[in-house]
């Protein structure tokens, strides 16, 4: 027994001695596959942040090094990536991107005691009582409430349909929008689901047309919205779409053409408008990276890590976790602080609109 204790003690000592000269941090997300553009944004944001932090001398006198994991938004691969990352002894994870990857992977990080900051919006991400997870993005239920309330107020008396693409993200968002509409007495005229990845949504369009729907709240990704808009136009239906944060993707504009001006969506306050972030935005643009979508969030996640580490004076899980939960951090997306579940306390969502290939807060 005593021998065991001794061994354990030695083990502890050994593990306390830093093996790596650098602090390893990681990002994980869909670097390949259908949603590769989101992974690309995360990577670009994280790379610049780490360059900036290292230029200022790193954290605790050591440089940060980035590991990149590709889960292709496949839950099975996400667990593999998580195990690989744990094995590389990372001290912080920013990811994953798809909620269905974040959820199984977070179990692994939790077990290995690695703190993580994610942009996944599914409520389940922080509802499972894991202590290591911090969400730097809003939740689908907040998002849905903002979108639903806006629709109910702005399009009073018009027929509103709520549609989703049967993904975890899309259905969650659509359900929350429908709930918010109900609460305001604007019962959705239609509640439908489609299958993502198809090309033909003429059935849905006909149904919307025959029900006299003018506004469609959509939970899902931008690709389908572009197709629905095109097909609605072809069928002579003028449709306004309200979507979620995935609508920030410029592919929507390329694919839907001018009809994209009819797209409203909810997204966290645009970090590019944050005066404190002006320097960083400029830096990105100088590097020919438009700091759209998740770029600034990845930057902020790395800032969160650097500042929490400095506050805790340690990269050990217990210290970091405590620092993150209790502290407050100045990042490019605003002042971050977290509640007991790990959700952030930033003001949630704004309503945006696409106009001529750029998005901005909707004109009141």
């Amino acid at each position, binding site marked *: 027994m005593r021998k065991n204790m001794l061994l354990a003690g030695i083990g502890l000592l050994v593990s306390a001695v830093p093996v790596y000269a650098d602090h390893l941090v990681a990002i994980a997300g869909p670097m390949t596959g259908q949603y590769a553009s989101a992974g690309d944004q995360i990577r670009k944001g994280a790379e610049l942040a780490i360059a900036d932090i290292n230029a200022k001398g790193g954290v605790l006198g050591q440089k940060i090094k980035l590991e990149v994991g590709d889960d292709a938004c496949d839950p099975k691969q996400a667990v593999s990536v998580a195990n690989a990352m744990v094995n590389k002894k990372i001290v912080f994870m920013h990811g994953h991107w798809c909620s269905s990857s974040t959820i199984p992977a977070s179990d692994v990080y939790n077990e290995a005691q690695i703190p993580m900051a994610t942009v996944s919006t599914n409520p389940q991400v922080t509802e499972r009582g894991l202590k290591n997870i911090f969400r730097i993005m809003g939740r689908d239920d907040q998002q849905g409430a903002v979108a639903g309330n806006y629709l109910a107020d702005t399009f009073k008396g018009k027929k509103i349909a709520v549609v989703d693409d049967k993904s975890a993200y899309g259905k969650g968002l659509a359900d929350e929008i429908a709930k918010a509409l109900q609460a305001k007495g604007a019962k959705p005229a239609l509640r439908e689901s489609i299958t993502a990845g*198809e090309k033909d949504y003429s059935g849905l369009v006909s*149904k919307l047309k025959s029900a006299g729907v003018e506004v469609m709240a959509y939970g899902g990704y931008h690709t389908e919205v572009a197709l629905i808009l*095109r097909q609605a136009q072809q069928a002579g239906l003028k449709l306004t779409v309200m979507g979620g944060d995935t609508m920030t993707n410029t*592919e929507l504009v390329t*694919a839907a*053409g001018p009809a994209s001006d009819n797209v409203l969506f909810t997204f966290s306050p645009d970090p590019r408008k944050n005066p404190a972030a002006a320097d960083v935005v400029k830096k990105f643009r100088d590097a020919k990276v438009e700091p759209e979508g998740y770029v600034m969030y990845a930057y902020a996640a790395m800032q969160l890590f650097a500042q929490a580490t400095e506050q805790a004076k340690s990269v050990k899980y217990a210290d970091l976790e405590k620092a993150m939960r209790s502290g407050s951090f100045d990042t490019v997306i605003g002042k971050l602080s977290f509640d007991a579940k790990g959700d952030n306390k930033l003001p949630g969502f704004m309503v945006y609109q696409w106009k001529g290939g750029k998005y901005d807060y909707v004109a009141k």
Partner: protein
Amino acid sequence: MNVVKNKKWESGKCMALALQQLINGLTLGAVYGLIAIGYTMVYGIIGMINFAHGDIYMVSAFIAVSAFTLLASLGITSVPLALLTVLLLSVLFTSVYGWAVERTAYRPLRGSTRLAPLISAIGMSIFLQNMVQLTQGARVKPIPPVVVGGFDLYASEGFTVHLAYSQLLIVIVTVALMAAFSYVIGKTSFGRQQRACEQDPTMTALLGINVDRTISLTFMLGATLAAVAGVLVTVYYGVVDFYIGFVAGIKAFTAAVLGGIGSMPGAMLGGLLIGLVEAFWAAYLSPEYKDVATFSILILVLMFRPSGLLGRPEVEKV
């Protein structure tokens, strides 16, 4: 009072909706049918499921996007001219793909087990998808609308039945292609060789017909039809991505089996049926279970007609 009015209002609209979905379903079905013929021909001649066929169609859609964009940048604005050029280019390059796929992945496996070419085909499908993703990018590729406008056929209580010119184009091209195709299979010497190979490849070879060449031509012909489908879809939906081949491939394969695999009119019929089932199911019942409906119909048909709707009923050869 209100209710009664509503009912009347609904019935006129119901008709209009049904008509609209009939148009939409036939358009979709024609595309499925064109792809399904490729499956059925290949199955007929070498008895394998060419899983990469859907991806050939996807490749053709990408070729169409490049060609349309190229023509637009060259300043060619005449729609018929642009369409014809793109069709020709797409057919040309896609048929080379059809030929190359057979030559590299299937021919070395001729005469081996039944499953080896199937796995090779799955590998080829993965390869083509990722090849396109790498060379053309993972982003969706849109083109501006080529064929715009259409007729308003019938209006009822605020619902107008709309037939877009692009839909008309799909139906006309499909019908013309089917006519040309029946001629090729029925009347030309290639058609006779093709049918002979289907019946008995060994005997055909003994009669001095080049079976390899016939099989190659069959793949090219299948690819041609897929290429036309790819161009039409690009025109109709305006958006393509590297994943469309898989979805359309599964549907078209189902159509081929539903119609009776090996039968070309059957493939077209199966395609139209699936297109209609999808269109009506999506409009009247829950679109979530659309695919369940498609597959359930397939399973039911196979239970009662084990060789598909127009397949030759097979007497067990003992």
